[in-house]
């Protein structure tokens, strides 16, 4: 019995990395979902700009928070607008792997 004293604490310390890892995974998933929501909003903002005959890129950038400025890519093909956004991640490769995209289409003037 005396030899097992503190065993729970040791196990808890050993479990902390697992809990932290699970928390990081959850946070990464939440960040990815949030990025998808942002990409949706940005794609709609860009489409509204296209429908008004305005360039889409400023509208897309205006619909995104500051941290997404260098993480977004905009592709436009006539009335189709695709916004690709890399979510925040501690690993750049992971951010690339979890890149989200949102596409919208709107009738353009003329």
């Amino acid at each position, binding site marked *: *019995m005396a030899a*097992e*004293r*503190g*065993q*729970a*604490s*040791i*196990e*808890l310390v*050993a*479990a902390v990395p*697992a*809990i932290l890892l*699970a*928390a990081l*995974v*959850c946070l990464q*998933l*939440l960040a990815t*979902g*949030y990025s*998808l*929501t942002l990409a*949706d*909003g940005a*794609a*709609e903002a860009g*489409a*509204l700009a296209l*429908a008004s005959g305005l360039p889409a890129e400023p509208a897309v950038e205006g619909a995104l928070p500051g941290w997404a400025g260098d993480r977004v890519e905009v592709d436009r093909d006539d*009335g*189709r607008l695709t916004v690709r956004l890399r979510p925040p991640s501690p690993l750049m490769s992971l951010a690339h792997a979890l890149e989200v995209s949102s596409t*919208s*289409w*709107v*009738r*353009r*003037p*003329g």
Partner: protein
Amino acid sequence: MPPLILCCELPGSSGVVAVAAALGVAIATDPKAGGSTESVLRVEVGERRPRGPTMLAADGARSLEQALRDGGREAAARGHLTWLRLERDDAVEALEAAVEPTAGARAVVVACSSAEARGLLDAGAVQPDAIVLRADLPAQRALAALAARDLRAEAARVKVVGRGLGRVASRRAVAGIDPGGEASRRVRRLARKLLVAPRPSPAIASEAGQALPLALGGIFALVFGALLLAAFGGAVTGTSRTQRAADLAALSAARSMRDDFERLFVPPRSPRGVPNPAHLPKQEYLARAEQAAVEAAERNGVASERVEVDFPDGDSFAPLRTAVEVRAKLDVSGAGLSVEQRAVAEAVPPSDASAPAGQPATAIGGGYSGPLAYRQGEPMRPDVAAAFDRMAAAAGAAGQSLVINSAYRSDAEQAALFAENPDPQWVAPPGTSLHRCATELDLGPPSAYGWLAANAGRFGFVQRYSWEFANCGEGTSSFRSGGVIRSNRLTRLTFKRRASSASQKGFSISPRSACSTGTTRVPSRSGAGPRMNIANRSRSASFTRATVFAPSRRPRTASPSSL
């Protein structure tokens, strides 16, 4: 150090030596009590008779006996036990010295009286792991209870033995062999309780694995929370995307309307009667808008059968509003979620729609405030223009060429005319002329009056003034305004669109487009001016009281019929 069990007896009771011996045998032989090949040292304190070795003894007992004798002690191997006798006077020192070489013993069992036990305990000679108190119960129950309470401060376990082993069992035990029978079973149970570690409660049985449930619980809570948020986020995203599809579909339809808006007002036929490909009928205009909405919905991930397009102002002559309703079914964590989203978009008509250079496309200045269509340079409501187009084409087929002399005239323009000729009999005060409604047309030439009187009704127009008034054409030359003499082109018939047509419905995109002629002034029939012929007395007051006799609204012209 082997475990040490101190066995003592209350005054008046006996048999502690046999109990101690049986306990030692049980410890040495019972596997459940940790039995092994090692011997148990049985120590007797006090003036008891010496005991010699037995013929049969365990090897461990023999080895221990030899070790003790080498140390100058009086020891004897007896069965499973090694007996050691200590004098009462030097029991404290002797026990400390005797226990030292017994490191190889399985256990040390000391038998003594209660007084001797107290002496050993007070002197600190022994620190027993357990104490067995021999007392005759129930006679000595109270005393045994008091003694046991005191002894619990000295050892972790204190047991009271209420009766002896019996004569035969005692002799066997003292000889170092199992007492046998019920006594043996009783002593074995006692040995297990004294030496075998008590089974702790399950909650504290071991700390091993105690953190695992906590860690697993934490991870489960995290994953569950993440899944819950993911499901919620999925529902929000799906709803948002459905709304986006509705928004963009409505916007695309409005975009189509705006792009096609001008074509609504283009004459359907050229002056030579050739169909004009630039003209777009209203039904096709709406169909193109609906097609644009459906296409946008499909390209944004919504099936066409889930899209419903409506035009709230579809009854107007130039609809500009589109309502799109999208019904979607979302799959949220396996559960179907029905979502209905609706969006309404409204197109702003282009500012230069069908307007000649320098002319406004939207009426301003008071009165009608909607879009204007221009025919022969004169502004009018688009639906009036469309009706005129049809009538002009029919007139052309009959060899008549219609000329528009005046159409829409804002309150501001009427005010300018009235300022030049402030005679209400000839020029209507601002706000009283029906020209402000953009539904009035002054048509000519006089040669077409007969055809107009016979056919204008087919195209939704109503004759307001008798065409005989055309005879006044030359007569108007007597009316001057600003030195400008009116030509005969200024006297024309005036036609109104029927009240049942779109003229009553106004232009839906702006409430300002509503045109009121509640104060429209009708010149007196008995006056010197032209006679009035109200075509249809069943019409609303705004029409029956109205009369328009207007010539051109050009700034340098004036007319006695600017009413």
